[in-house]
């Protein structure tokens, strides 16, 4: 079959525009913003792909998804086959299709890009994964006969889930230990419903459970059992995917006033605990009228858009550099702008002011200008003397990044971490300084992305399998 169109005709088709909820409406609800492509739109978009022999797009993807391969299957209307093709290297296509920074990865290098707009690879990935799930076409993969080897996975974020999926197929017994009461990591507690519906993450975890993965939620490794105790209990290899869940604060006066949250707290209350539906759910959350979110990453965008949905009259992004340096996905910045978020660029807080009752009522800020590039290559912000001003706020969300949680390194003798607390691994195998202990995702990289965490999980699983079969005698 293949593509019926001539190359030049493919180029005439404009890139698909994702249908989405109207900004004025969606800024007050938690439903997903983009609706997804229709079948017709997906077919049209797929026909734009030139099926390049060298397929540069594949090299743009951290896990080498066979992009032209799955797109050809879409053209053949074999959507489930396309989903399976993606899953050969990426076990979370419904998630990645939604949250991958495609514009910097696969789509950034698509040959259609410069002149005609890149093929909407992310939209297509989402389309086939949703199609497969919604039509109950997900098939249980072949599972190898039991090997008698047991694996423990610490943390159920994208890294841990990927390792679980790979190793269960190979016949190992797999247990995932998760500190929170629901699996999914940042996918459930951090990224909001309007960007990644929780039912999708749940479906992924249910699928793993159907394959035989055992989930032990509400279990904090290091507090309950340590890594060494897990070995003593009979686990033959361990994967650490505990993420980067220690919130950074700014360290400026007034930061412990009521109404100043870390983004982790704000988003966890809203997403995991469903405080947006208080009092139907019991966990409360502060509803701010004038909300300032400090930072310029995805977490900041998620927080500020959550604030709008919880009724904020003014929702500000306060960022010390300029828009060009913001690390958030362009699409999310654009969404936030459409929804009416006000961007205060080149601005940094210096002091939080309380109302006498312990609640924040204002924030003193200073204007910045950009100087020479710093180590990260971005131009360093420098305060402009005397430019201080005060902004009335009743809720502040600090979204300036996370560090790694020290619990596992602290409770695991001989496990090497760097000065930021990130676990050190052999790049090639993801093995740590402890034999049989592997690690990946944010606990190794610091704050990174879903697909990099999943990619680490995939590599780790390959080497864990080798280790289990060759070095663990049964």
């Amino acid at each position: 079959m293949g593509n019926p169109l001539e190359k030049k005709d493919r180029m005439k088709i404009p890139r698909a525009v994702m249908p989405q909820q109207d900004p004025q409406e969606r800024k007050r609800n938690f439903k997903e913003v983009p609706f997804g492509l229709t079948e017709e739109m997906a077919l049209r978009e797929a026909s734009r792909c030139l099926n390049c022999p060298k397929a540069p797009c594949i090299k743009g993807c951290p896990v080498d998804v066979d992009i032209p391969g799955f797109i050809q299957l879409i053209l053949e209307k074999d959507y489930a086959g396309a989903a399976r093709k993606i899953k050969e290297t990426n076990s979370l296509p419904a998630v990645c299709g939604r949250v991958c920074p495609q514009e910097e990865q696969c789509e950034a290098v698509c040959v259609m890009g410069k002149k005609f707009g890149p093929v909407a690879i992310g939209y297509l990935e989402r389309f086939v994964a949703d199609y497969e799930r919604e039509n109950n076409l997900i098939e249980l993969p072949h599972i190898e006969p039991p090997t008698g080897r047991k694996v423990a996975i610490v943390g159920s974020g994208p890294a841990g889930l990927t390792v679980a999926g790979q190793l269960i197929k190979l016949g190992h017994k797999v247990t995932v230990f998760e500190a929170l009461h629901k699996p999914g990591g940042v996918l459930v507690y951090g990224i909001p419903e309007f960007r990644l519906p929780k039912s999708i993450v749940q479906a992924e975890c249910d699928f793993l459970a159907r394959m035989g993965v055992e989930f032990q939620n509400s279990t904090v490794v290091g507090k309950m059992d340590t890594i060494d105790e897990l070995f003593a209990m009979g686990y033959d290899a361990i994967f650490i995917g505990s993420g980067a869940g220690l919130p950074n604060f700014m360290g400026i006066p007034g930061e412990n006033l009521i109404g100043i949250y870390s983004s982790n707290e704000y988003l966890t209350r809203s997403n995991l605990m469903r405080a947006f539906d208080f009092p139907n759910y019991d966990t409360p959350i502060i509803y701010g009228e004038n909300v300032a979110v400090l930072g310029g990453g995805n977490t900041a965008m998620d927080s500020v858009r959550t604030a709008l949905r919880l009724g904020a009259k003014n929702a500000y992004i306060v960022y010390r550099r300029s828009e060009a340096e913001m690390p958030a996905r362009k699409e999310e910045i654009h969404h936030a702008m459409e929804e009416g978020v006000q961007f205060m660029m080149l601005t940094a807080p210096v002091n939080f002011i309380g109302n006498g009752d312990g609640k924040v009522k204002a924030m003193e800020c200073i204007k910045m200008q950009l100087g020479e590039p710093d180590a990260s290559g971005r131009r360093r912000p420098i305060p402009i003397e005397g430019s201080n001003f005060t902004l009335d706020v009743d809720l502040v969300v600090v979204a300036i990044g996370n560090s790694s949680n020290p619990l596992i390194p602290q409770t695991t003798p001989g496990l090497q971490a760097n000065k930021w607390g990130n676990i050190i691994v052999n790049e090639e195998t993801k093995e740590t300084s402890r034999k049989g202990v592997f690690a990946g995702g944010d606990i190794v990289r610091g704050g990174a992305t879903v697909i990099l965490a999943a990619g680490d999980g995939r590599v780790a699983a390959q080497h864990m399998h080798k280790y289990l079969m060759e070095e663990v005698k049964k």
Partner: protein
Amino acid sequence: MPKVIDNIQIGPVVWKMRVEVPRLVEKAKAGQFVIIRVDEHGERVPMSIAGLDKKNGLLTVIYQVVGKTSALMTTVPAGGQLADCVGPLGVPSHVENWGIACVIGGGIGVAPIYPIAQAYKAAGNKLITIIGARSKNLLFYEEEHKAIADEMYICTDDGSYGQKGFVSDALKKLLDDGVKIGMIMAIGPVPMMRVVANLTKGYNVPTWVSLNPIMIDGTGMCGGCRVSLDGKTKFACVDGPDFDGHLVDFDLLTKRLGAYREMEKRAMKKFLEDPNCRLNEELKKVMAGN
């Protein structure tokens, strides 16, 4: 899901719940806490460990009904289940032989201080126990404490039992009498811990307190539980809950505990108005009055 063995009322607004969580109990130490969620819509509420039955794998928590979730907890029948119970969380209390150690429990604090008293005693300390309540009918855990204390003082604010006055009065007398206390651990309402810490500062006796800020995850992930010690921010769930009382900013703690007062009232009101509300009538009246 963790099974509730029994759940009985032991005071006007105080319940004792035993939960079967053998693995947790095996690992838990005095001074640590757990986080309980009653049902799928529930909050995560931290509760101190008030007893560990290692043989039968049973955890005891003693809780005071102060709002929606603690009220809801009273409705879980013996044999019923909790959505989850995670722990042990926090750093265990520091225990060594100081010669003479003194534990002070006020109000609900008499329960969580008990396992710590046991640990102090086991480490070879002479154990002085001071427990107190507003009034006789609010006092519990007396027998348990009596069984292990070398010296024991009971105080009630209204003088209805033991000596009249605050636990800090009894402590002050000991200190004035020159008793060489090596370590004091106080658990109770924030004002009580503050008074004790302020008092012992003058006598230069190391004094630890167990802090109870609002928490969510209890793993160091959210920072909601931050407290200030000598100007430095700490996360009570992972750095505590025990802290040097002489360094704690009690003002900040008090204020932060009030962060959700209005919403908590709404939640309680909705709960009481629900026709399916299974609270006992007496408790309903008490809570409606709050």
